[in-house]
């Protein structure tokens, strides 16, 4: 008999305000399937503060706290402290922030929460720019990408530097568990979020979530492009725990050109630029594989 491969319960309501084909909404739906109803989410100004809908309606069937842009780490620590004071230990605290609210504006508060070893899960949904305010460049925007603040033009002013290595930064900061997940691999995503629930300490999940208007892709290609990111090695799926790395999906088979050329934000790239991206991806992927060596990669 045909079976569902994911938990059936839906904790995201229909009728939310996300764009058609939104990767971040799909991500929330999949993550909440793994997290379950005993979850408190807090999120800063980001796409999700809009997707939740307009009062008096709410799209999430779990409690949500909205707060200022830079506070995700601090508010998560606060909720956990309040739960501890009340003696509640079966509720999961989740910080849910976009890439700008994590690697740029919220970095200090997140670093503080990791420093305090706050017991919570931080999920960064990475759509690679400030999409909610109209596609401005963030620390997570990839090399050579077009955004409204890196518009190119005569002086070729595309994004000039690579993405911030946020996972490496937080691993040196002292997280208990780190994982990258993608909306294109839902079973892997649910397994990792469920695993994060069982670990004490700060858990960081870096999730790639495609954005049709910001990446300039058709809404129907949202999942396909996210899958290409993993298949080209641009966004490898791996886990970090107790000093060891595990590569979950060793599926790097395609050239980066296929991923880059599927999106309007990279359409200006010259063959030399594509070769440079390929060189960097190959280097990073080899370095990651070297770190995973001995840990027994599967997938």
């Amino acid at each position, binding site marked *: 008999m*045909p079976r569902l491969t994911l938990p*059936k319960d839906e904790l995201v309501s229909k009728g939310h305000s996300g764009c058609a*084909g939104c990767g971040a909404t*799909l991500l929330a*739906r999949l993550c909440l399937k793994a997290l379950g109803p005993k979850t408190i989410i807090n999120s800063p100004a980001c796409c999700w503060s809009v997707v939740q809908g307009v009062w008096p*309606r709410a799209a999430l069937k779990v409690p949500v706290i909205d707060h200022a842009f830079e506070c995700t780490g601090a508010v998560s620590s606060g909720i956990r402290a309040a739960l501890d004071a009340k003696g509640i230990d079966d509720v999961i605290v989740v910080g849910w922030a976009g890439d700008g609210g994590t690697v740029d504006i919220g970095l200090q508060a997140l670093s503080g929460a990791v420093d305090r070893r706050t017991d919570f899960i931080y999920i960064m949904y990475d759509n690679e720019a400030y999409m909610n305010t109209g596609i401005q460049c963030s620390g997570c925007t990839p090399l050579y990408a077009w955004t409204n603040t890196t518009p190119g033009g005569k002086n070729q002013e595309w994004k000039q530097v690579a993405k911030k290595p946020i996972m490496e930064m937080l691993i040196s900061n002292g997280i208990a568990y780190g994982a990258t997940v993608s909306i294109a691999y839902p079973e892997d995503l649910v397994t990792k979020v469920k695993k994060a629930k069982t670990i004490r300490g700060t858990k960081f999940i870096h999730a790639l979530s495609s954005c049709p208007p910001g990446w300039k892709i058709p*809404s*129907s290609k*949202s999942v*396909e492009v996210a899958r290409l990111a993993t298949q080209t090695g641009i966004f490898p799926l791996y886990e970090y725990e107790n000093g060891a790395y595990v590569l979950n999906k060793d599926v790097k088979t395609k050239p980066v050109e296929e991923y880059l050329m599927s999106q309007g934000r990279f359409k200006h790239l010259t063959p030399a630029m594509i070769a440079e991206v390929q060189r960097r991806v190959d280097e990073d992927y080899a370095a990651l594989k070297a770190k995973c060596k001995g840990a027994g990669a599967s997938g």
Partner: protein
Amino acid sequence: METYRDLPQSTYSLQTTESVRTGTWRTFRPIIDTKKCTRCYTCWKFCPDVSIEVREEGEYPRVDYDHCKGCGICANECPTGAIEMVREDSIC
């Protein structure tokens, strides 16, 4: 509520967004061909709008046209090509 004193002390939601008919956003309507469908539920898995319904395992998936925004991920991901995107104005 007459004055600000009658407002609740903090904001809380009174209902879910289910009453918002996001189906009106749609330009293309997904139509599932049950002859080609193998019930793998890939469409259900990838729907960002929670609009593909599987009431019981073993059933064919159904589309909730009140909420489906017509993004087309289901048609793009379907391994057997059982979902077709049809323009709304060609239907009625």
